[in-house]
């Protein structure tokens, strides 16, 4: 049997704002003997338009994604949100288009969020990572409630050497990002984020870790604005940390 071939759906946020997360994903997958590819024809999954009610615009962007990954065994995205867009909302978007709906079904069976891919598909939890810090994990809503992934990220984090993983108060409460909600209702989005940052800070954690670029940009932006000592990291960035010799 050959190596599993994984095509990255890197997501527009990681591509443009958090490319280091993408590099970490690539390194981790390669260490697990996976053949990683990246198709530069990819852009965005279409969620911003879908989330804002512009379904035609979303469909036109999503339709491209259906054709990008035909020869991959798996497609992996470092985002619960983009993964739910493909797995949960694409079928709704293409409900009236039988040909695309079929394509959609084929795609969603192979499409995984990064942490669930590691734990549920590759069946690995210990990545040999080492990160001697106090860390708290924020469940992003789409990953948790659309995909039902709650344990996978925690299993991976618990196996990291030296890590002190602590749960914060109301760890399943939304951080207030919500896609375009963050700019349509900044007056609500910001205080929701403040609650989250406070809950994380109260654990004494140095790092607030999440598996979604959207939540991280929102929370990091808040933390930076307020000059707080808390730092944010994507799950993949923690898992890519190796023991220094």
């Amino acid at each position, binding site marked *: 049997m050959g190596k599993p071939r994984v095509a990255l759906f890197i997501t527009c946020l990681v591509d*443009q704002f958090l490319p280091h997360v993408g590099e970490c994903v690539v390194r981790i997958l390669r260490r697990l003997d996976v053949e990683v590819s990246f198709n530069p024809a990819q852009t965005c999954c279409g969620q*911003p338009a879908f*989330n804002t009610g512009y379904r035609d615009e979303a469909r036109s962007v999503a339709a491209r994604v259906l054709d990008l990954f035909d020869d991959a065994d798996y497609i992996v995205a470092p985002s619960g949100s983009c993964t739910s867009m493909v797995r949960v909302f694409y079928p709704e978007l293409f409900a009236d288009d039988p040909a695309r709906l079929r394509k959609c079904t084929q795609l969603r069976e192979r499409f995984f969020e990064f942490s669930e891919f590691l734990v549920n598909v590759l069946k690995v939890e210990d990545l040999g990572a080492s990160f001697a810090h106090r860390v708290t994990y924020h469940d992003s809503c789409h990953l948790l409630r659309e995909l039902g992934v709650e344990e996978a990220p925690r299993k991976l984090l618990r196996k990291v050497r030296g890590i002190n993983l602590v749960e914060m108060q109301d760890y399943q409460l*939304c951080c207030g990002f919500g896609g375009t909600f963050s*700019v349509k*209702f*900044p007056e*609500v989005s910001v205080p929701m984020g403040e609650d989250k940052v406070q809950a994380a800070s109260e654990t004494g954690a140095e790092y607030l870790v999440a598996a979604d670029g959207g939540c991280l940009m929102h929370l990091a932006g808040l933390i930076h604005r307020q000059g707080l000592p808390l730092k944010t990291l994507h799950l993949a960035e923690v898992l890519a940390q190796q023991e220094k010799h």
Partner: protein
Amino acid sequence: MDDTGIHSNEIHVGASRTLGNARLLEAYRASTLRLYTHRLQAISEVPGFERLCDRAREVKREVIEHLDSYLAQFADNVERHGGKVHWASTAEEVCRIVVDIAHHSGAREVVKAKSMLGEEVEVNHALAAAGIRAMETDLGEFIIQLAGERPAHIVAPAIHKTREDVSELFVTHIQAERTVVPEQLTAIARRALREMFQKAGMGMSGANFAVAETGTVVLVENEGNIRMCTTVPRVHVALVGIEKLIPRLADLGVFLRLLGRSSTGQKLTTYTSFLTGPRRPGEDGPEEMHVIMVDNGRTAALADPKMREMLYCIRCGACLNTCPVYRKIGGHAYGWVYSGPIGALVTPELVGIGQARELPFASSLCGACREVCPVRINIPDLLLHLRSQAQEHAPKRQESLLPERLMFRLWAWGMRHPLLYALGTRLARWGQVLLARRGWIRKIPLFPASQWTKGRDFPALAPKAFRDRWKQLRGE
């Protein structure tokens, strides 16, 4: 001044009012947290709670899919037991029927049990206009009636009032002695209400469930006021939304177990009343029982195969208590009588999306509401559906130079063409040199990014995108 009309498109104004008031925020936080915690505790004690939810959903689906026949069956059974059934398709019709019944029975005073439908059709205003005094007898409703406000929560209408607020209202409006002791405040209300129960010629209620098989109106409560409203006055009028039906008495077991636990964390409310027709010889109760079956926009929701699901709602309020947005902006911000996630569905459906187009957007789509819904309404999915409907109606506010749809068309065009995407992001990298300091941007003068930087810094685009790093990464 009494709050009337629909202000749902002014949600930003209402939201800021709550967010700017620390005392109000704390009242919402503490009360929703209490209800939320009680619910969690209560459902943990029920083995197979999830199966109960499945069953409830199945029953509601069955009713809503065959509403016409269940309505006919219910109406027949009400009349068979001596009740009178009225059909009202609009709020105005409901009010006209109620006023007619009051006039006919000679009632000058009406006591009211808590009814969200009564709030919806603004029946108190119609009665007042006809010279009839309507008095709310649910403690929470009594408080907000004195304050001239609408319910801030579908189960706990005065959730936003502190005991100090209540004391102030009682002193001002019913010349009560000043106290902040809850028991004393309740005693004051009780005194005022007793007097009305004795005087009132007519009592009004809503309905939690309407049993088709028996023609029974089922009401749940904790204060005993509903039992008083529906049995003491000579005439009882029940307002029943057409979605309140359940097929059989046997189905009630499922719903009663869900409703109390989901709304207040109670196993069962203190009182559960089963009202089947007016009194029979030798019994207590009203001489006349009128049941007004109300549409007021519900059949429009029924006609939409997607939105139909919202009619499953049993108004437990669990989605409000768990909603991080409701907790921050409060009930009044939703601009009508229904609030929270379910309000963001019900209001646009009942009053028309044009009058409430902002509501579906007032959600981070986190899905916490769906998780607690006892009939598993897929609220985020329906909100997304309403968002697409809302985009057919031009927004009132236009903050950007380009209309939003045009912005998204341009965005979609760029996203369909990787070269344009690469070019656009490269241009943005040059442009951000003027704004970014050490990887962060403090202020972006361009809408909608300007909205982001109101309270957060915006991360600068990484010097090199992943796609550009890939060229090197591929060879490693």
